């Protein structure tokens, strides 16, 4: 007979993930989660990395998922605080290939600064959560988690605790799962969470939660186990094992999928017994929801809300309650599904007016070149996110501040080349781009990071940041140089005037051809800070054939006239449209004079 492996929960999660066709795994070490990545690093097949922190790890995992790889991202409970920014919005974008986030919680704080119960994060982000109670389940649940992730287009939280992660048990291996390849497809409305698209994804996420609840009702992970006494216990995770030993004859509703809750299965338990307990560690996460159904339940009134439980604590807490008279039976009241407000229809079918990049915005100059390259453009948060909207359509992800570089790294790690570039602003670079850049360097990821340096935090109204040195009171402090910073971490960096089209184009092409990590800083101050007088672009009506190439730049100063292009008074003469005009119909007055003088 084949020897049955005796595994820790963490080893089981690792092997369960490999069995489920894992392509990429990463995390930041943190007790009790660390051994998952350590175990995976020793297994042939998936790409496995330690990341600089949990936020960057999750962003890198998202990139890998987009590239088509099933991705596992591991962290301890407090690590999810660091990764909460991408986590909360990933819940809206959803995934491409399956993405599972492991949160290993530490009730009792054996090795932690707090004992926050991360089950709240599943409810907070409205994503499904699986809670294994031992090593075998840890192994089995990973495949379930990946399937749920792909079927429902959502990240899945796999929540473990110290006694699951660091407990050991025998794990019967299962047949490997066949995974369909999931190629990346650009989908701006799904992956770029600007308000307009995020509102729609939010509606979908709300509706998805109700579909997941129906799945939880049917799921074999949520088992109603018949007992022989008039006691019912609702439990999940390792707490279930304690309750099982304390009350071996009780009925159990064992929740492997503990969010969203299967209300009807809970009601079924109440049909079978007259007395129901909820046994769970830390906060009354399940209990509160059972109470909300109007059902009588005993839990945290006798079971401690802090520290770990064990079978004795559970028995001693609940046994005296059995002497009480059983509560009166009550009918559950199922909460109605949430009302989801629809998108308001455009008023009287008037043309909508989405926000746009200003005339003379240096970001437009970079997008004008970038959109001709065959690369995925991972974006970030700032004015430049507007490059995702028509007609530019040049930016294809926006998850949270600083996510662009990690997502690029995840994609490129899986593709083995610079298939994606990252685009972020100077202020965003300082906010949280630096950490991801260090991570990409450390993990030897190929790619191009373009810092659109407009010398300010433009979108919010031109605040200062460490790159400008401008303080909140408008006084000047030290300005940190982005190029020096990149050099300091060993990343080659080029700084170019954002409007120097040939130079920017050359730098992009060179970087994309290479296999190393590079930074390109495209420098030009925000046009709103530049109060100098501007000259306006002039149209040669004879040459212009209204082909629309310049209009396709989305500049509010360029209008389609009846015979030729018209340039409005807010033109700043930035000249980006000159470069795209195939017929030389556009010029700046100074240049036009020169041409006149030559002829």
């Amino acid at each position: 007979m084949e020897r049955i492996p005796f595994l820790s929960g963490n080893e089981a999660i690792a092997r369960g993930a490999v069995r489920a066709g894992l392509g990429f795994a990463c995390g930041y070490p943190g007790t009790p989660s660390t051994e998952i990545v350590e175990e995976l690093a020793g297994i042939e097949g998936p790409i496995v990395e330690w990341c600089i922190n949990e936020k960057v790890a999750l962003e890198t995992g998202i990139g890998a998922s987009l590239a088509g790889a099933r991705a596992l991202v591991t962290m301890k409970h407090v690590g999810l605080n660091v990764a909460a920014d991408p986590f909360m919005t990933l819940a809206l974008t959803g995934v491409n290939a399956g993405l599972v986030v492991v949160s290993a919680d530490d009730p009792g704080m054996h090795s932690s600064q707090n004992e926050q119960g991360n089950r709240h994060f599943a409810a907070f982000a409205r994503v499904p959560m699986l809670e294994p109670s031992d090593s075998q389940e840890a192994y089995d649940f990973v495949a379930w988690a990946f399937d749920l992730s792909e079927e429902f287009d959502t990240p899945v939280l796999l929540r473990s605790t110290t006694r699951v992660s660091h407990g050991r048990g025998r794990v019967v291996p299962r047949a490997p799962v066949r995974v369909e390849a999931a190629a990346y497809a650009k989908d701006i409305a799904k992956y770029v969470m600007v308000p307009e698209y995020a509102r729609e994804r939010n509606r979908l996420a709300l509706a998805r939660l109700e579909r997941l609840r129906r799945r939880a009702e049917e799921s074999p992970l949520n088992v109603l186990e018949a007992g022989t006494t008039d006691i019912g216990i609702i439990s999940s995770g390792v707490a279930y094992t304690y309750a099982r030993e304390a009350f071996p004859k009780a009925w159990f509703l064992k929740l492997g999928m503990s969010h969203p809750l299967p209300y009807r299965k809970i009601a079924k338990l109440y049909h079978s017994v007259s007395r129901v307990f909820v046994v769970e560690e830390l906060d009354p996460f399940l209990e509160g929801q059972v109470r909300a159904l109007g059902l009588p339940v005993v839990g945290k009134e006798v079971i401690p809300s802090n520290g770990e439980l064990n079978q004795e604590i559970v028995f001693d807490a609940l046994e005296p309650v059995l002497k009480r008279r059983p509560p009166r039976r009550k009918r559950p009241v199922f909460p109605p599904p949430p009302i989801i407000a629809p998108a308001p229809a455009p008023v009287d079918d008037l043309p909508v007016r989405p926000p746009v990049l200003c005339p003379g915005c240096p970001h437009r100059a970079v997008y004008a070149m970038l959109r001709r390259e065959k690369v995925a453009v991972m974006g970030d948060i700032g004015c430049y996110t507007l490059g995702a909207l028509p007609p530019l359509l040049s930016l294809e992800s926006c998850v949270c501040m600083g996510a662009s570089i990690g997502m690029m790294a995840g994609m490129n790690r899986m593709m083995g080349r610079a298939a994606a570039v990252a685009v972020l602003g100077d202020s965003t670079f300082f906010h949280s781009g630096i950490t991801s850049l260090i991570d990409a360097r450390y993990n030897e990821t190929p790619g191009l990071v373009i810092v659109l340096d407009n010398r300010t935090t433009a979108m919010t109204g031109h605040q200062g940041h460490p790159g400008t040195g401008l303080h909140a009171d408008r006084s000047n402090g030290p300005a940190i140089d982005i190029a020096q910073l990149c050099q300091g971490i060993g990343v080659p960096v080029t700084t170019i005037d954002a409007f120097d089209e040939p130079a920017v184009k050359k730098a992009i092409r060179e970087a994309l051809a290479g296999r190393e990590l590079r930074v390109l800083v495209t420098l030009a101050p925000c046009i709103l800070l530049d109060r100098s007088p501007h000259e306006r672009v002039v149209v040669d009506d004879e040459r212009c054939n209204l082909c629309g190439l310049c209009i396709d730049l989305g500049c509010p100063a360029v209008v389609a006239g009846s015979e030729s292009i018209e340039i409005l008074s807010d033109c700043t003469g930035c000249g980006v449209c000159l470069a795209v005009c195939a017929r030389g119909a556009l010029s700046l007055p100074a240049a036009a004079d020169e041409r006149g003088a030559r002829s």
Partner: protein
Amino acid sequence: MNGVATVSLAGVGGQGIILAAAIVAQAAMAAGFDVKTSEVKGMAQRGGSVVSTVRYGKQVWSPVSPRADVVIATETLEGRRALDLLADKGTLVYATTVIAPGSVLRGERAYPGDLPEVARARQIRIIAIDAEALAREAGSVRAANVALLGAATHALPFGSAAWERALELAVPARILELNRQAFALGREAGARKEEGL
């Protein structure tokens, strides 16, 4: 609603809607009303449609309202759009400024020209002025928002002193004189438009 009046200020991000709303709010306070305002900033600022709200009355609770008694629009299409907010027989004060949105620039959509008909059909009182021309006359096209407020004085129950106080409080000192000028020109133009009705 309940003796509370709502003024919605609509325009294109960058046209000075927020300052205009601040002036209306100050004028309402100077006239002795309780006032609440609400505005949307950030991404919407960059050339998108923006709406700020000023509500005044004896006591105001909510800072927003889906229904306005007066709409002040710094751009024609945004004024047309804001008719949706305006109660029947309400007043629309708008600038004849035209800023084409992207779909119109690209020739995909036509700039709507039906504002007067739609307003007339709903018995909406209209005060329309060329605010940009008046602002230029006063010294800077950027004061078009304040010129428009001059015209809006004919739709709001605040006295001259209240408006004067509001300008002093809300407009930076170095451009106050220019804005006073624009305001006066707008007020004059608005009065003429009223006579014409």
